[in-house]
C-alpha cells in the first residue's frame, strides 16, 4: 500500500513569551555578546513531540484532541505553512489545505472577484476556476449577489462562498481544520456532504474537528493528540471513546472543573465545581436516567458583577448539542454577584437522558453575551442505567439520547389480560 503521508519523529518547538523583538534589543544583545550563543534564557514550548504515523492513500483520518494538543501545529506543518524543528514529513501528490474558509477574501472585491482570488490563493489555475465558476456559484447559493462587494455579505454568505471554492479543489491530499465548526446546521450538512464526496473520490483527507460526531461519520481512523504526542491511533470510534473517557474526571457526587485550554472568559466570575444533590439537598453518589436531582454550580467572583447570566449547554460525548439553558430564560435574573464564593442551582424533576456520558459546557456572561466571564468550562455527566420504564428492561445508549415519559396501550380486545404478566421485554438487549 502506498502512503500518502509519512511522518517521522516530528517535533515542533515554539518560543513563548514575546515573539517579536525590536531591532535595538538585538543590536544591544549582539554588542554585549558578539560571539556567544544568544537568547539563552528564551523559553520554549514543544507543540509537537516525536510524532510519527503514516496515512495510506485514500484514507480519511480524523485528528482529535484538546485545544493546545498540537492538532493545528500538525496541520500547519503538513500544509508547509510552518516548518518542523525536528523530524521528517513526506506528502505525495497535490496538497490543499483548508485551515480557514475564504482565506484572502477581500472586503472591497465582489463575490465574483473573490472567487478568482481565493481560488488562486488555494492553488487553482485561472482556467480551472473558469471551468468550475458556475458550479461554484450554484453551490454557494449567492447567485444574486455575485457582483456585490462581499463587505455587504452576511457572514453566512461569506462562509458558503468560501466553502464553495474549496469544494471545487481537486487535491490528492486534503487537509481540513475546523471548517465545519462554524455556520448553521444546513451549511454544516452541505460541508459534510462535500467531504463525503471527497472521501468517495478516493482522496486522502486529514480532518481536525471538535465535532466528534462528524469525525466518527467521516473518518475511518482517528488519531488522538495529547500534549503534542500521539496518545491513541486506531479506529475512529474507538479513539473517540477513549478521548471522551479522558475528559471525565470523577462524576460521583461532585466534579471539579479542570482548567482546559478551551476555557474562555475574563475570570471575573469562574465556576469552581459542580455538585450533584438529591432534591432534599443531600449528596448523591451517582446519577441515573430519570432521576430527580439538583445540580449546584459553585462559582467564585473576584469583584462585584452586575446582572451575570448563568447558562449551560449539554452535549453528548460525540459533541452533539442536546440543550442550552440559562437562568434568565427561565425567568431568574441575578441582579448582582458579590465578591467571594457562591452557587446557583438547577433543579431537574426528571433527567430524561439515556445512560451515556454527557458533558456540560458552562458559561457566565453578561445579558447580551458581549462579556464572557467564564466560558466553556467543561464537566462530565455520567448517566447510569435505571429501570425507567418500570418494566424491568433498561434502555442503553443504543436506544438514543433521550426518552419521553409515556404510556403505551392497546385496544381492550387485544389486551392479554392481567394473568399473562410480563416476560417478553427482558429477552431483548
Amino acid at each position, binding site marked *: 500500500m502506498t502512503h500518502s503521508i509519512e511522518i517521522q519523529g516530528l517535533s515542533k518547538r515554539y518560543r513563548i513569551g514575546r515573539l517579536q523583538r525590536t*531591532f535595538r534589543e538585538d543590536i544591544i544583545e549582539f554588542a554585549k555578546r558578539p560571539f556567544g550563543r544568544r537568547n539563552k534564557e528564551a523559553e520554549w514550548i514543544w507543540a509537537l513531540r516525536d510524532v510519527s504515523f503514516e496515512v495510506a492513500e485514500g484514507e480519511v483520518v480524523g485528528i482529535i484532541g484538546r485545544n493546545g494538543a498540537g492538532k493545528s501545529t500538525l496541520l500547519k506543518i503538513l500544509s508547509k505553512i510552518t516548518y518542523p524543528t525536528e523530524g521528517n514529513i513526506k506528502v505525495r501528490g497535490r496538497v490543499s489545505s483548508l485551515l480557514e474558509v475564504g482565506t484572502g477574501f477581500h472586503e*472591497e472585491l465582489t463575490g465574483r472577484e473573490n472567487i478568482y482570488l481565493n481560488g488562486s490563493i488555494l492553488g487553482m489555475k485561472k482556467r480551472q476556476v473558469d471551468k468550475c465558476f458556475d458550479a461554484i456559484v450554484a453551490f454557494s447559493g449567492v447567485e444574486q449577489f455575485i457582483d456585490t462587494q462581499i463587505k455587504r455579505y452576511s457572514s453566512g454568505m461569506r462562509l458558503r462562498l468560501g466553502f464553495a471554492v474549496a469544494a471545487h479543489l481537486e487535491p490528492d491530499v486534503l487537509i481540513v481544520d475546523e471548517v465545519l465548526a462554524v455556520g448553521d446546521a444546513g451549511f454544516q450538512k452541505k460541508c459534510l456532504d462535500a467531504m463525503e464526496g471527497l472521501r468517495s473520490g478516493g482522496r486522502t483527507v486529514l480532518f481536525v474537528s471538535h465535532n466528534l460526531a462528524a469525525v466518527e461519520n467521516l473518518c475511518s481512523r482517528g488519531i488522538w493528540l495529547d500534549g503534542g504526542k500521539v496518545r491513541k491511533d486506531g479506529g475512529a470510534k474507538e479513539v473517540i471513546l477513549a478521548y471522551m473517557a479522558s475528559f471525565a474526571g470523577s462524576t460521583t457526587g461532585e466534579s471539579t472543573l479542570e482548567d482546559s485550554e478551551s476555557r474562555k472568559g475574563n475570570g471575573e466570575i469562574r465556576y469552581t465545581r459542580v455538585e450533584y444533590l438529591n432534591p432534599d439537598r443531600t449528596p448523591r453518589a451517582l446519577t441515573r436516567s430519570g432521576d430527580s436531582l439538583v445540580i449546584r454550580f459553585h462559582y467564585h467572583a473576584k469583584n462585584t458583577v452586575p446582572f451575570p447570566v448563568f447558562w449551560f449547554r449539554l452535549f453528548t460525548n460525540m459533541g452533539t448539542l442536546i440543550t442550552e439553558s440559562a437562568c434568565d430564560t427561565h425567568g431568574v435574573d441575578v441582579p448582582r454577584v458579590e465578591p467571594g464564593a457562591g452557587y446557583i442551582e438547577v433543579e431537574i424533576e426528571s433527567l430524561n437522558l439515556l445512560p451515556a456520558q454527557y458533558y456540560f459546557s458552562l458559561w457566565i456572561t453578561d445579558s447580551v453575551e458581549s462579556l464572557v466571564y467564564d466560558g466553556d468550562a467543561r464537566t462530565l455527566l455520567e448517566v447510569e442505567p435505571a429501570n425507567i420504564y418500570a418494566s424491568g428492561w433498561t434502555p442503553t445508549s443504543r436506544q438514543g439520547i433521550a426518552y419521553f415519559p409515556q404510556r403505551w396501550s392497546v385496544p381492550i380486545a387485544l389486551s392479554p389480560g392481567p394473568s399473562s404478566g410480563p416476560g417478553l421485554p427482558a429477552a431483548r438487549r
Partner: protein
Amino acid sequence: MGLNARWILELWGYRELVFFLAWRDVKVRYKQTVLGVLWAVIQPFFTMVVFTLLFGQLAKIPTDGIPGPIFYFSALVPWIYFSSTLTNAGMSLVSNSNLLTKIYFPRIILPAAVALSNLVDFFIGSALFIGFMAYYEIPLGWSLLLWPSLVILLVLLSLSFGVFLAALNVKYRDFRYAIPFAIQLLLFATPIIYPASMVPEKFRWLVALNPLSGVIEAFRYALVPGSAIDWKLLWFSIGITAVLFVAGVAYFRSAEKAFADIV
C-alpha cells in the same frame, strides 16, 4: 538555499497568484478612493509643480538645460515607483499575515505582487510624461529603446530593498517606522531635484554608491534626446542592483521559515 532551481520552478507554478494579488491591490487601491486612478497622475504631477517652483524658480538649481517640468517629472515617476514599492513591499508580509498563517505559497510572491501592481501607476505616470514631451515639442530619441531594460532594472532594484525590508519587518516591529524616514533622506541623496553632474567630481563616487542614481538619471536622459547617459553611473547601478537582489532574496529565503511563527 538561496536561488535554487527547484524554488524558481515552484515560483513559476505560482505565477498566476502574483498576477491575482497584484490585480487585487490595483483594484482595491482604486476602488477605495474617490479619485481612483487619478491619484496615479495627481501625485507626480503636483510634486513636479512644487519642485519646479521651489527648486527651479526659487533656488535656481540647474536642470542641465532641460525644461524644469520635464527634468523633475522624468525622475519623479521612477522615484515614486521605487518609494511606494519599498514601503508597500516592506509591509506586504505583515499586512497579509492572515495569508501567511493560513496557507502555503512561496512567500516572496507577496512583495513581488506589490512590485507588479505599482507598475500600473508607473505606466500611467509614464504616459503622462509622454504627454509633457509632446507639449514641449521634444521628440523622443533612439535611446527610448533602452527604456524597457531600465524598467526591469528599476523593478529589480526596488524589489531587492523591498524583500529585505519585508523580512526585517516581520522580525523587528520597529523597522516600519524607519522606512518613511529613510525614503525621505534618499530623496535628497538621489539626483532627482539636481543633476548628478552638479555634484563636485570629488564626491561623484558617493552618488554612484547609491544604486538609484544610475537608474533615475538614465530614465531622465534616455527620454530626453541630446543629453548623454552617464554609462559609468548606470553600470554601477546595474552591478549594485545585481548584488543587492541576490543578497535580498537570500536573506528573505533564510528568514521565511519563521514567518508564520512570528508574524
